Protein backbone atom coordinates (compact mmCIF):
# COMPACT_ATOMS: atom_id res chain seq x y z
CA UNK A 1 0.00 0.00 0.00
CA UNK A 2 1.35 3.45 -0.87
CA UNK A 3 2.59 5.81 1.85
CA UNK A 4 -0.14 8.28 0.92
CA UNK A 5 -2.93 5.70 1.18
CA UNK A 6 -1.63 4.54 4.56
CA UNK A 7 -1.51 8.07 5.85
CA UNK A 8 -4.98 8.96 4.53
CA UNK A 9 -6.34 5.88 6.30
CA UNK A 10 -4.71 6.98 9.56
CA UNK A 11 -6.44 10.37 9.34
CA UNK A 12 -9.73 8.84 8.20
CA UNK A 13 -9.75 6.19 10.94
CA UNK A 14 -9.10 8.85 13.60
CA UNK A 15 -12.09 10.80 12.38
CA UNK A 16 -14.49 7.88 11.96
CA UNK A 17 -13.66 6.25 15.31
CA UNK A 18 -14.09 9.46 17.31
CA UNK A 19 -17.17 10.31 15.26
CA UNK A 20 -18.71 6.93 16.15
CA UNK A 21 -17.76 7.29 19.83
CA UNK A 22 -19.21 10.77 20.19
CA UNK A 23 -22.38 9.66 18.41
CA UNK A 24 -23.02 7.37 21.41
CA UNK A 25 -24.23 10.49 23.22
CA UNK A 26 -27.06 10.89 20.73
CA UNK A 27 -30.20 10.69 22.87
CA UNK A 28 -28.16 10.48 26.09
CA UNK A 29 -26.61 13.96 26.33
CA UNK A 30 -26.40 15.64 29.75
CA UNK A 31 -28.49 18.50 28.32
CA UNK A 32 -30.31 18.75 25.00
CA UNK A 33 -27.86 21.40 23.74
CA UNK A 34 -24.93 19.07 24.40
CA UNK A 35 -26.76 16.15 22.83
CA UNK A 36 -27.05 18.27 19.67
CA UNK A 37 -23.49 19.56 19.98
CA UNK A 38 -21.95 16.09 20.12
CA UNK A 39 -24.11 14.90 17.21
CA UNK A 40 -22.91 17.91 15.20
CA UNK A 41 -19.27 17.25 16.07
CA UNK A 42 -19.76 13.63 14.99
CA UNK A 43 -21.33 14.76 11.74
CA UNK A 44 -18.27 16.88 10.97
CA UNK A 45 -15.90 14.04 11.87
CA UNK A 46 -17.79 11.48 9.78
CA UNK A 47 -17.89 13.99 6.91
CA UNK A 48 -14.11 14.40 7.16
CA UNK A 49 -13.70 10.62 7.30
CA UNK A 50 -15.79 10.21 4.14
CA UNK A 51 -13.68 12.69 2.18
CA UNK A 52 -10.48 11.02 3.41
CA UNK A 53 -11.73 7.48 2.66
CA UNK A 54 -12.82 8.59 -0.81
CA UNK A 55 -9.35 9.94 -1.46
CA UNK A 56 -7.73 6.79 -0.02
CA UNK A 57 -9.96 4.67 -2.28
CA UNK A 58 -8.84 6.72 -5.31
CA UNK A 59 -5.24 6.21 -4.24
CA UNK A 60 -5.71 2.45 -3.73
CA UNK A 61 -7.67 1.88 -6.93
CA UNK A 62 -9.13 -1.56 -7.66
CA UNK A 63 -12.39 -2.29 -5.84
CA UNK A 64 -11.67 0.10 -2.96
CA UNK A 65 -14.57 2.38 -2.00
CA UNK A 66 -15.20 4.56 1.03
CA UNK A 67 -17.71 2.01 2.36
CA UNK A 68 -15.35 -0.92 1.93
CA UNK A 69 -12.65 0.93 3.84
CA UNK A 70 -14.92 1.96 6.69
CA UNK A 71 -17.04 -1.16 7.04
CA UNK A 72 -15.00 -4.12 5.85
CA UNK A 73 -11.63 -3.72 7.52
CA UNK A 74 -10.91 -5.40 10.87
CA UNK A 75 -9.31 -4.15 14.08
CA UNK A 76 -5.62 -4.66 13.14
CA UNK A 77 -6.15 -2.74 9.90
CA UNK A 78 -7.37 0.40 11.69
CA UNK A 79 -4.71 3.07 12.19
CA UNK A 80 -6.43 5.43 14.62
CA UNK A 81 -4.87 6.67 17.85
CA UNK A 82 -5.84 4.43 20.79
CA UNK A 83 -7.05 7.53 22.67
CA UNK A 84 -10.01 7.86 20.30
CA UNK A 85 -11.41 4.34 20.71
CA UNK A 86 -11.58 4.37 24.52
CA UNK A 87 -15.05 4.37 26.09
CA UNK A 88 -16.46 7.52 27.73
CA UNK A 89 -15.13 6.59 31.18
CA UNK A 90 -12.06 5.34 33.01
CA UNK A 91 -12.03 2.06 34.98
CA UNK A 92 -15.52 1.40 36.34
CA UNK A 93 -16.27 0.22 39.86
CA UNK A 94 -18.86 -2.49 40.35
CA UNK A 95 -21.51 -0.12 41.68
CA UNK A 96 -21.13 2.43 38.85
CA UNK A 97 -24.50 3.77 37.79
CA UNK A 98 -23.50 4.84 34.33
CA UNK A 99 -20.82 4.11 31.80
CA UNK A 100 -20.98 7.56 30.23
CA UNK A 101 -18.88 10.29 31.83
CA UNK A 102 -19.10 13.66 30.11
CA UNK A 103 -15.83 14.84 31.63
CA UNK A 104 -13.98 12.05 29.82
CA UNK A 105 -15.70 12.96 26.55
CA UNK A 106 -14.81 16.64 26.90
CA UNK A 107 -11.17 16.01 27.86
CA UNK A 108 -10.68 13.63 24.92
CA UNK A 109 -12.30 16.03 22.44
CA UNK A 110 -10.16 18.84 23.80
CA UNK A 111 -6.84 16.94 23.59
CA UNK A 112 -7.59 15.68 20.08
CA UNK A 113 -9.02 18.97 18.71
CA UNK A 114 -5.99 20.89 20.03
CA UNK A 115 -3.78 18.52 18.06
CA UNK A 116 -5.87 18.54 14.89
CA UNK A 117 -6.08 22.35 14.72
CA UNK A 118 -2.29 22.25 14.35
CA UNK A 119 -2.22 19.22 12.04
CA UNK A 120 -4.89 20.51 9.63
CA UNK A 121 -3.26 23.92 9.57
CA UNK A 122 0.01 22.36 8.33
CA UNK A 123 -1.72 19.89 6.00
CA UNK A 124 -3.14 22.79 3.99
CA UNK A 125 0.34 22.76 2.40
CA UNK A 126 0.31 18.99 1.72
CA UNK A 127 1.71 17.89 -1.64
CA UNK A 128 -1.50 15.90 -2.09
CA UNK A 129 -3.84 18.60 -3.41
CA UNK A 130 -7.05 16.86 -2.38
CA UNK A 131 -5.69 16.31 1.16
CA UNK A 132 -4.77 20.01 1.29
CA UNK A 133 -8.36 20.90 0.31
CA UNK A 134 -9.79 18.53 2.93
CA UNK A 135 -7.43 20.09 5.51
CA UNK A 136 -8.68 23.61 4.76
CA UNK A 137 -12.29 22.50 5.32
CA UNK A 138 -11.53 20.39 8.38
CA UNK A 139 -9.51 23.17 10.01
CA UNK A 140 -12.56 25.41 10.19
CA UNK A 141 -14.59 22.61 11.73
CA UNK A 142 -12.02 21.52 14.29
CA UNK A 143 -11.47 25.11 15.45
CA UNK A 144 -15.10 25.12 16.44
CA UNK A 145 -14.78 21.71 18.13
CA UNK A 146 -11.82 23.05 20.09
CA UNK A 147 -13.81 26.09 21.14
CA UNK A 148 -16.66 23.86 22.34
CA UNK A 149 -14.50 21.38 24.27
CA UNK A 150 -12.28 24.12 25.71
CA UNK A 151 -15.28 26.08 27.01
CA UNK A 152 -16.62 22.96 28.71
CA UNK A 153 -13.20 22.02 30.06
CA UNK A 154 -13.05 25.41 31.80
CA UNK A 155 -16.66 25.22 32.94
CA UNK A 156 -16.21 21.78 34.46
CA UNK A 157 -12.69 22.30 35.79
CA UNK A 158 -13.49 25.68 37.34
CA UNK A 159 -16.95 24.48 38.39
CA UNK A 160 -18.10 22.51 41.44
CA UNK A 161 -15.91 20.22 43.54
CA UNK A 162 -17.59 17.24 41.87
CA UNK A 163 -17.14 18.48 38.29
CA UNK A 164 -13.54 19.50 39.02
CA UNK A 165 -12.68 16.10 40.50
CA UNK A 166 -14.26 14.23 37.59
CA UNK A 167 -12.61 16.22 34.84
CA UNK A 168 -9.24 16.04 36.64
CA UNK A 169 -9.64 12.25 36.90
CA UNK A 170 -10.46 12.12 33.17
CA UNK A 171 -7.35 14.15 32.40
CA UNK A 172 -5.17 11.88 34.56
CA UNK A 173 -6.63 8.87 32.77
CA UNK A 174 -6.33 10.16 29.19
CA UNK A 175 -3.15 12.22 29.14
CA UNK A 176 -0.79 9.20 28.97
CA UNK A 177 -2.47 8.18 25.69
CA UNK A 178 -1.30 11.43 24.07
CA UNK A 179 2.26 10.06 24.13
CA UNK A 180 1.23 8.20 20.98
CA UNK A 181 0.91 11.55 19.13
CA UNK A 182 4.62 12.32 19.54
CA UNK A 183 6.08 8.85 19.10
CA UNK A 184 6.94 8.44 15.45
CA UNK A 185 5.88 5.59 13.17
CA UNK A 186 7.11 4.35 9.80
CA UNK A 187 3.66 5.10 8.36
CA UNK A 188 3.98 8.79 9.26
CA UNK A 189 7.67 9.05 8.38
CA UNK A 190 6.95 7.75 4.88
CA UNK A 191 4.21 10.35 4.34
CA UNK A 192 6.38 13.16 5.70
CA UNK A 193 9.22 12.10 3.36
CA UNK A 194 6.98 12.55 0.29
CA UNK A 195 5.63 15.92 1.47
CA UNK A 196 2.13 14.52 1.91
CA UNK A 197 2.11 14.25 5.72
CA UNK A 198 3.06 16.49 8.62
CA UNK A 199 5.72 15.82 11.27
CA UNK A 200 3.49 15.69 14.35
CA UNK A 201 6.38 15.64 16.83
CA UNK A 202 7.33 19.14 15.65
CA UNK A 203 3.90 20.40 16.77
CA UNK A 204 4.34 19.39 20.41
CA UNK A 205 5.40 22.77 21.82
CA UNK A 206 2.43 24.51 20.15
CA UNK A 207 0.13 21.81 21.49
CA UNK A 208 1.62 22.15 24.97
CA UNK A 209 0.94 25.89 24.88
CA UNK A 210 -2.71 25.38 23.86
CA UNK A 211 -3.23 22.71 26.52
CA UNK A 212 -1.44 24.49 29.37
CA UNK A 213 -3.30 27.73 28.68
CA UNK A 214 -6.67 25.96 28.91
CA UNK A 215 -5.74 23.86 31.94
CA UNK A 216 -4.64 26.94 33.82
CA UNK A 217 -7.94 28.66 33.16
CA UNK A 218 -9.76 25.46 34.14
CA UNK A 219 -7.75 25.23 37.41
CA UNK A 220 -6.65 21.72 36.44
CA UNK A 221 -3.27 20.14 37.06
CA UNK A 222 -1.44 18.66 34.11
CA UNK A 223 -0.47 15.11 35.08
CA UNK A 224 3.01 13.77 34.41
CA UNK A 225 2.90 11.11 31.71
CA UNK A 226 5.03 8.04 31.23
CA UNK A 227 4.82 4.28 30.91
CA UNK A 228 3.44 2.27 28.04
CA UNK A 229 3.00 4.16 24.77
CA UNK A 230 -0.07 2.94 22.91
CA UNK A 231 0.27 2.00 19.24
CA UNK A 232 -3.19 2.22 17.75
CA UNK A 233 -1.82 3.97 14.69
CA UNK A 234 0.32 0.88 14.05
CA UNK A 235 -2.72 -1.41 14.31
CA UNK A 236 -2.20 -2.53 17.92
CA UNK A 237 -5.48 -1.62 19.63
CA UNK A 238 -7.21 -1.86 22.97
CA UNK A 239 -10.08 -4.34 23.39
CA UNK A 240 -12.54 -1.44 23.02
CA UNK A 241 -12.11 -0.97 19.28
CA UNK A 242 -13.58 -4.39 18.46
CA UNK A 243 -16.84 -3.55 20.24
CA UNK A 244 -17.00 -0.15 18.57
CA UNK A 245 -16.43 -1.62 15.10
CA UNK A 246 -18.91 -4.44 15.58
CA UNK A 247 -21.61 -1.87 16.27
CA UNK A 248 -20.50 0.45 13.46
CA UNK A 249 -19.96 -2.27 10.84
CA UNK A 250 -22.69 -4.76 11.83
CA UNK A 251 -25.40 -3.51 9.51
CA UNK A 252 -23.15 -3.12 6.48
CA UNK A 253 -21.75 -6.65 6.99
CA UNK A 254 -25.17 -8.21 7.52
CA UNK A 255 -26.34 -6.76 4.20
CA UNK A 256 -23.27 -6.48 1.96
CA UNK A 257 -23.80 -4.38 -1.16
CA UNK A 258 -27.22 -3.28 0.00
CA UNK A 259 -28.31 0.16 -1.09
CA UNK A 260 -30.90 2.39 0.52
Amino acid sequence: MSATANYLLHLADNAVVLGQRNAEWCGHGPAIEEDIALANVSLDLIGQARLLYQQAATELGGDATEDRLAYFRDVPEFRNYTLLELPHHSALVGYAKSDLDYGTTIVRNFLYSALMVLVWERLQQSKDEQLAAIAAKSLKEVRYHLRHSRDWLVRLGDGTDESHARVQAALDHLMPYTQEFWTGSSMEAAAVATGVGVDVAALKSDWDALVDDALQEATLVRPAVGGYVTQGKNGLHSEHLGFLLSEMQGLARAHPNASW
Partner: protein
Amino acid sequence: MNAVIPSDAVQAAWAALEALADPEIPVVSLRELGILRDVRQGADGLEVVITPTYSGCPAMGQIEDDVRATLQAAGLQGRVITQLAPAWTTDWMSDVAREKLRVYGIAPPQHRCASQAPAGESPLRFVRQAARPEVVPCPHCGSSHTVESSHFGSTACKALYKCLDCQEPFDYFKPY
Protein backbone atom coordinates in the same frame (compact mmCIF):
# COMPACT_ATOMS: atom_id res chain seq x y z
CA MET B 1 -35.59 18.92 -28.59
CA ASN B 2 -33.65 21.60 -30.40
CA ALA B 3 -29.87 21.33 -30.44
CA VAL B 4 -28.45 23.77 -27.90
CA ILE B 5 -25.13 25.41 -28.63
CA PRO B 6 -22.70 25.29 -25.66
CA SER B 7 -22.74 28.92 -24.47
CA ASP B 8 -26.53 28.92 -24.58
CA ALA B 9 -26.56 25.74 -22.51
CA VAL B 10 -24.48 27.40 -19.81
CA GLN B 11 -26.80 30.39 -19.74
CA ALA B 12 -29.88 28.20 -19.75
CA ALA B 13 -28.46 26.17 -16.85
CA TRP B 14 -27.70 29.30 -14.84
CA ALA B 15 -31.22 30.53 -15.46
CA ALA B 16 -32.73 27.20 -14.40
CA LEU B 17 -30.55 26.84 -11.31
CA GLU B 18 -30.84 30.49 -10.24
CA ALA B 19 -33.93 29.95 -8.15
CA LEU B 20 -33.05 26.49 -6.80
CA ALA B 21 -33.52 26.71 -3.04
CA ASP B 22 -31.39 25.24 -0.30
CA PRO B 23 -33.18 22.12 1.05
CA GLU B 24 -32.61 23.12 4.70
CA ILE B 25 -33.24 26.88 4.40
CA PRO B 26 -35.73 27.21 1.54
CA VAL B 27 -35.84 31.05 1.57
CA VAL B 28 -32.36 31.35 0.07
CA SER B 29 -31.05 29.89 -3.16
CA LEU B 30 -27.96 27.71 -3.51
CA ARG B 31 -26.39 30.48 -5.54
CA GLU B 32 -27.02 33.10 -2.86
CA LEU B 33 -25.54 30.81 -0.20
CA GLY B 34 -22.41 30.25 -2.27
CA ILE B 35 -22.98 26.49 -2.58
CA LEU B 36 -23.52 26.69 -6.36
CA ARG B 37 -20.05 27.76 -7.51
CA ASP B 38 -19.99 27.51 -11.27
CA VAL B 39 -21.71 26.31 -14.40
CA ARG B 40 -19.33 25.69 -17.27
CA GLN B 41 -18.80 23.85 -20.49
CA GLY B 42 -16.47 20.92 -19.76
CA ALA B 43 -14.87 18.46 -22.17
CA ASP B 44 -17.81 16.05 -21.82
CA GLY B 45 -20.58 18.62 -21.68
CA LEU B 46 -22.16 20.82 -19.09
CA GLU B 47 -20.62 20.83 -15.59
CA VAL B 48 -22.24 22.23 -12.46
CA VAL B 49 -19.81 22.82 -9.59
CA ILE B 50 -21.09 22.74 -6.03
CA THR B 51 -19.22 22.93 -2.72
CA PRO B 52 -20.25 21.61 0.70
CA THR B 53 -20.73 24.05 3.58
CA TYR B 54 -19.49 21.56 6.18
CA SER B 55 -17.74 18.24 5.40
CA GLY B 56 -20.59 16.24 6.90
CA CYS B 57 -23.47 18.35 5.60
CA PRO B 58 -26.26 15.76 5.15
CA ALA B 59 -27.99 17.95 2.55
CA MET B 60 -25.25 17.49 -0.07
CA GLY B 61 -26.85 14.36 -1.54
CA GLN B 62 -30.20 16.13 -1.75
CA ILE B 63 -28.59 19.19 -3.34
CA GLU B 64 -26.94 17.04 -6.02
CA ASP B 65 -30.27 15.35 -6.77
CA ASP B 66 -32.05 18.73 -6.89
CA VAL B 67 -29.48 20.13 -9.32
CA ARG B 68 -29.83 17.09 -11.59
CA ALA B 69 -33.62 17.22 -11.50
CA THR B 70 -33.62 20.95 -12.26
CA LEU B 71 -31.30 20.48 -15.25
CA GLN B 72 -33.44 17.62 -16.51
CA ALA B 73 -36.63 19.67 -16.18
CA ALA B 74 -34.97 22.40 -18.26
CA GLY B 75 -34.09 19.84 -20.93
CA LEU B 76 -30.38 20.01 -20.17
CA GLN B 77 -27.84 17.31 -19.53
CA GLY B 78 -24.86 17.78 -17.30
CA ARG B 79 -22.87 16.37 -14.48
CA VAL B 80 -22.48 17.63 -10.93
CA ILE B 81 -18.97 18.13 -9.59
CA THR B 82 -18.28 18.54 -5.89
CA GLN B 83 -15.29 20.76 -5.31
CA LEU B 84 -13.73 21.35 -1.86
CA ALA B 85 -11.21 24.12 -2.52
CA PRO B 86 -11.48 26.99 -1.86
CA ALA B 87 -13.35 26.03 1.30
CA TRP B 88 -16.84 27.48 1.60
CA THR B 89 -17.23 30.54 3.78
CA THR B 90 -20.22 32.61 4.90
CA ASP B 91 -18.38 35.59 3.37
CA TRP B 92 -19.74 34.44 0.00
CA MET B 93 -23.30 34.99 1.13
CA SER B 94 -24.86 38.00 -0.60
CA ASP B 95 -26.40 40.90 1.32
CA VAL B 96 -29.74 39.99 -0.21
CA ALA B 97 -29.39 36.46 1.21
CA ARG B 98 -28.48 37.85 4.64
CA GLU B 99 -31.61 39.98 4.69
CA LYS B 100 -33.75 37.02 3.57
CA LEU B 101 -32.36 34.94 6.42
CA ARG B 102 -33.16 37.66 8.96
CA VAL B 103 -36.74 38.02 7.73
CA TYR B 104 -37.09 34.22 7.91
CA GLY B 105 -36.04 34.32 11.60
CA ILE B 106 -32.39 33.29 11.31
CA ALA B 107 -29.84 35.90 12.43
CA PRO B 108 -27.29 36.29 9.59
CA PRO B 109 -23.52 36.10 10.22
CA GLN B 110 -22.37 39.24 12.06
CA HIS B 111 -18.88 39.53 10.66
CA ARG B 112 -16.69 38.50 7.75
CA CYS B 113 -14.36 35.58 8.39
CA ALA B 114 -11.52 36.76 6.19
CA SER B 115 -10.90 39.58 8.67
CA GLN B 116 -11.47 37.32 11.69
CA ALA B 117 -8.59 34.91 11.29
CA PRO B 118 -6.04 35.98 8.70
CA ALA B 119 -3.75 33.30 7.36
CA GLY B 120 -0.87 32.54 9.67
CA GLU B 121 -2.61 33.70 12.81
CA SER B 122 -1.99 31.24 15.62
CA PRO B 123 -4.88 29.03 16.70
CA LEU B 124 -4.28 30.12 20.28
CA ARG B 125 -5.24 33.68 19.43
CA PHE B 126 -8.12 32.46 17.33
CA VAL B 127 -9.62 30.57 20.24
CA ARG B 128 -9.26 33.54 22.59
CA GLN B 129 -10.84 35.81 20.04
CA ALA B 130 -13.71 33.48 19.26
CA ALA B 131 -14.38 32.99 22.97
CA ARG B 132 -15.26 36.67 23.29
CA PRO B 133 -19.05 36.93 23.10
CA GLU B 134 -20.39 38.57 19.99
CA VAL B 135 -23.47 40.80 19.76
CA VAL B 136 -26.11 39.09 17.64
CA PRO B 137 -29.28 41.15 17.13
CA CYS B 138 -32.56 39.26 17.54
CA PRO B 139 -34.14 38.69 14.09
CA HIS B 140 -37.64 39.01 15.62
CA CYS B 141 -37.50 42.27 17.62
CA GLY B 142 -34.08 43.70 16.72
CA SER B 143 -32.85 43.81 20.33
CA SER B 144 -29.13 43.30 20.85
CA HIS B 145 -29.85 41.97 24.34
CA THR B 146 -29.34 38.33 23.35
CA VAL B 147 -27.38 35.37 24.68
CA GLU B 148 -25.95 32.20 23.14
CA SER B 149 -27.66 29.10 24.55
CA SER B 150 -25.60 26.60 22.58
CA HIS B 151 -22.68 26.58 20.15
CA PHE B 152 -24.63 24.15 18.01
CA GLY B 153 -28.15 24.45 16.61
CA SER B 154 -30.54 22.51 14.39
CA THR B 155 -27.95 22.23 11.61
CA ALA B 156 -24.13 22.31 11.59
CA CYS B 157 -24.08 25.86 10.23
CA LYS B 158 -26.15 27.41 13.04
CA ALA B 159 -25.86 28.17 16.75
CA LEU B 160 -28.78 28.58 19.14
CA TYR B 161 -29.51 32.00 20.69
CA LYS B 162 -32.17 33.46 22.93
CA CYS B 163 -33.50 37.03 23.01
CA LEU B 164 -33.67 38.41 26.56
CA ASP B 165 -36.18 41.09 25.54
CA CYS B 166 -38.80 39.28 23.46
CA GLN B 167 -37.85 35.92 25.03
CA GLU B 168 -37.86 34.17 21.66
CA PRO B 169 -35.19 31.60 20.85
CA PHE B 170 -33.61 31.92 17.40
CA ASP B 171 -30.99 30.37 15.15
CA TYR B 172 -27.78 32.22 14.35
CA PHE B 173 -26.00 31.44 11.07
CA LYS B 174 -22.39 31.22 12.34
CA PRO B 175 -19.70 33.25 10.57
CA TYR B 176 -17.55 30.52 9.12
